[in-house]
């Protein structure tokens, strides 16, 4: 099993953070273009899921899978979006995404007054904490 990459978007669609671990194939476009494409797709899926759902759903969009990978999505009530791509063996990793938010993003970005909240994250502490958390997960390898 493995984790490929992570995206964190703020509620305005700015990509706050991107990191990849085992990504073998790069999209043939600039990172900025890729972030925009990713955010646009998530935005559309969210509204698609909300409209097509036959009943009121609390969670909305959670994940999708293709023949090669699985994309997991978690959105906080403040509109922060955490996206993790894994291989197909990963089950529901909602708690992992929530932990990234509550134990890493809140602790090392929100509580660091020098980190602006709607700009890409520069903090090295955040980067290293996130990296060691992801690598410690059983689904990482």
């Amino acid at each position, binding site marked *: 099993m493995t984790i490929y990459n992570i995206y964190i978007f703020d*509620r*305005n*669609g700015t990509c706050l953070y991107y990191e990849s671990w085992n990504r073998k194939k790069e999209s043939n476009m600039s990172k900025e273009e890729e972030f*925009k494409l990713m*955010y*646009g797709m998530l*935005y*559309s899926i969210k509204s698609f899921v909300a409209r097509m759902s036959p009943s009121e759903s*609390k969670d909305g969009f959670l994940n999708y899978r293709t023949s090669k990978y699985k994309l997991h999505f978690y959105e*906080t*009530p*403040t*509109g*922060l979006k955490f996206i993790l791509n894994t291989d197909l063996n990963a089950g529901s990793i909602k708690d992992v995404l*929530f*932990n990234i*938010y*509550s*134990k890493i*993003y*809140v602790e090392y970005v*929100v*509580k660091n007054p020098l980190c602006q*909240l709607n700009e890409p994250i520069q903090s090295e502490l955040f980067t290293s904490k996130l990296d060691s958390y992801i690598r410690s997960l059983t689904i990482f390898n």
Partner: protein
Amino acid sequence: MSRQSTVRADNRKVSAELFVLTHGALVAQLVKDYESDEEVNKQLDKMGYNIGVRLVEDFLARSNVGRCHDFRETADVIAKLGFKMFLGISPVVTNWSAASDEFSLILDNNPMAEFAELPEGHEGLLFSNILCGVLRGALEMVQMEVDVWFVHDSLRGDETTEIRLKFIKKLEDALPAGED
């Protein structure tokens, strides 16, 4: 990981007195720095706003509450969870407007003003105005634009301390560039 973090969460609890006295010192300094009480109130509100936009993330991460579906639910969460978590009190939610877009929080014993006494000549000072800013900033982050103000303040000789919240509008999610 979970055990470690509960230990840490406990260690981070500080005495309320430390916080209250620090806040008192802040207000005292602002009173020195600015000419009028209105200006001090404005500065406190602004600082509160900046705190609120960050505090809301901490709140959501620790309480794991989802999105509220109406303003009444919001009021409940603020009074029973938010105030409890950060100030250790549960204000009473009351005085709903007919349209359910306005309510009041009654703070029986405002912890922020525990050791405070307004000096002569500062009748216009809202000692705990930082709370209004915090509420406004925190709610703005969850897509709610609200007006928050003190109606009564026991420090100014009123019977109770009352904060009023008025729902203005729901803020919409930003569209990605090029889609409308």
